């Protein structure tokens, strides 16, 4: 069959069979997104993640002095958990409720469980840090327990499609990442109960083991895995060999396991080995991005400014981690440099999440609007993803989040609470701006369409 033989397209020989549309004639084509749960589920997670970012920024500003004087103090741990749970993990869990069914072309095990997960997750991830900051043990334990149950429910729900799906880089990476989510929150609840019972000392290396599991094994690996699907799509990039990304999603989880065990049991050589392996995996992740960019057929856009900046924070996190471990310095400086490493790692995934949310949220919103019959603008042109947020506000979000990251890092490394507080305020501002842009802008568009329809009806 020659493509274009009956029309004006250039002729291309087709050698394989065509895949038939499952149901011809009127009615929706059952494509990849036919398997996703109701949009309200991922959108509610992502909206709450926006509020989580605001809370993270405010809490960071509030404990800025404590971050310098004692970064493992409970109020600081509370602020960090607003970032890790209420912001980052909420965004990732929400995005995975959309992403996992799409890439596996399989439905979640249960939409009802997804709804229960949403309610429990949001309750838990706000209760836990809200209890940590003023040190209210029952609140901490209750919040932690709810998060554990919600994480297990989401893992059970994701495991259906992830275990059924054929092997791909994203699927492989997400299987490990979801396992790390369960491990991280399980560790977390043990720590929370230990606050009351004192079974073991919450020494800095044990806290860092928990941070490594959560930041690298769960959130970081999720991003590495998802990126292998999203980057080529957003860049219109096609390349024959995908070996580098494949290595990244396999090496990072192995490295994190060794790193966390080394830190947990204070086995220095194991921690160093794990750190080196994790860094190797992340280097492949960066290499994969470079490869996709080299083969792209689309100019770089704002998303890639987010991605490249986030990678700079990742490199900074790795460098600071190495210096903290191998450098000759006093304990105070070592703690400061290690804190810088953790903060930079958090900014790596934070910038990536904020950037990608400007792609994911408009897509889900667009799908929702179409289902409500809203597909054309007043001028008759189709509603596109780019119509559902303000590009200017998105650029402002990028600038503010980048400034927040720099301010936090310099503030922590330099022991300057003012800069840390400034970074916190900027993070909160970024949360307000991004959430408003992605949640409210589509309402403005819909209102303009409705107004035009009313005017049209009146005139006719």
């Amino acid at each position, binding site marked *: 069959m020659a493509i274009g033989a009956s029309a004006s397209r250039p002729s291309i020989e087709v050698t394989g069979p065509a895949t038939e549309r499952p149901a011809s004639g009127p009615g929706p084509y*059952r494509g990849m997104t036919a398997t996703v749960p109701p949009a309200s589920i991922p959108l509610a997670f992502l909206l709450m993640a926006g509020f989580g970012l605001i809370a993270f920024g405010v809490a960071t500003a509030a404990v800025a002095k404590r971050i310098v004087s004692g970064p493992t103090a409970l109020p600081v741990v509370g602020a960090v958990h607003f970032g890790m749970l209420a912001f980052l993990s909420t965004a990732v869990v929400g995005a995975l409720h959309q992403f996992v069914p799409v890439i596996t072309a399989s439905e979640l095990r249960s939409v009802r469980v997804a709804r229960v997960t949403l309610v429990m997750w949001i309750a838990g991830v706000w209760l836990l840090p809200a209890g940590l900051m003023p040190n209210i043990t029952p609140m901490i334990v209750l919040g932690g327990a709810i998060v554990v149950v919600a994480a297990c429910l989401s893992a059970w729900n994701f495991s259906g499609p992830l275990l059924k799906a054929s092997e791909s880089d994203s699927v492989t990476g997400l299987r490990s990442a979801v396992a790390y989510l369960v491990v991280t929150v399980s560790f977390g609840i043990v720590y929370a109960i230990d606050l009351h019972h004192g079974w073991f000392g919450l020494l800095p290396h044990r806290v860092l083991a928990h941070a490594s599991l959560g930041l690298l094994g769960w959130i970081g690996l999720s991003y590495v895995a998802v990126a292998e699907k999203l980057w080529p799509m957003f860049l219109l990039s096609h390349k024959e060999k995908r070996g580098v990304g494949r290595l990244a999603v396999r090496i990072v989880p192995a490295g994190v396991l060794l790193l966390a065990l080394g830190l947990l049991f204070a086995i220095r050589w194991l921690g160093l080995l794990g750190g080196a392996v994790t860094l190797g995996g992340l280097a492949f992740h960066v290499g994969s991005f470079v490869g996709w960019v080299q083969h792209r057929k689309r100019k770089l856009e704002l998303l890639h400014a987010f991605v490249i900046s986030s990678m700079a924070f990742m490199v900074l996190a790795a460098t600071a981690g190495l210096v903290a471990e191998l450098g000759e310095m006093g304990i105070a400086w070592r703690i400061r440099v290690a804190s810088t490493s953790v903060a930079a790692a958090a900014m790596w995934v934070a910038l990536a999440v904020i950037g990608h949310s400007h792609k994911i949220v408009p897509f889900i919103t667009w799908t929702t609007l179409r289902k409500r019959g809203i597909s054309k603008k007043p001028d008759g042109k189709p509603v596109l993803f780019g119509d559902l947020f303000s590009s200017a506000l998105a650029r402002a979000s990028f600038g503010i989040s980048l400034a927040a990251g720099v301010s936090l890092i310099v503030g922590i490394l330099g022991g300057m609470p003012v800069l840390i507080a400034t970074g916190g305020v900027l993070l909160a501002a970024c949360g307000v701006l991004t959430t408003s842009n992605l949640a409210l802008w589509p309402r403005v568009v819909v209102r303009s369409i409705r107004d035009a329809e009313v005017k049209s009806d009146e005139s006719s």
Partner: protein
Amino acid sequence: MNQVESRAWDALRNVYDPELAIDIVALGLVYAVRDEGDEVVLEITLTTPGCPVAETIPEDARAAVAEAVGPDKQVRVEIVWDPPWTPDLMEPEAAEALGFG
């Protein structure tokens, strides 16, 4: 190309990839349009099998062509993956719009 096919191609120029803001003909996603008497067959591909708008583009294409050719003809959309879409299939104007002219 007969008149029906011509109308179909024109109609497909109004079907957009919502992310790229470019019509699917310019993107090279339409492999063939055939008038087969009672029905018009569209062979359409997507930029990737996991394309998130896999659900909407074929349906939009079907609806646009159905409106253009009238009620006497059925419109059938076939999603084809072979040959896979590559950016080289884009029209020069589309490539230029994406910064690769």
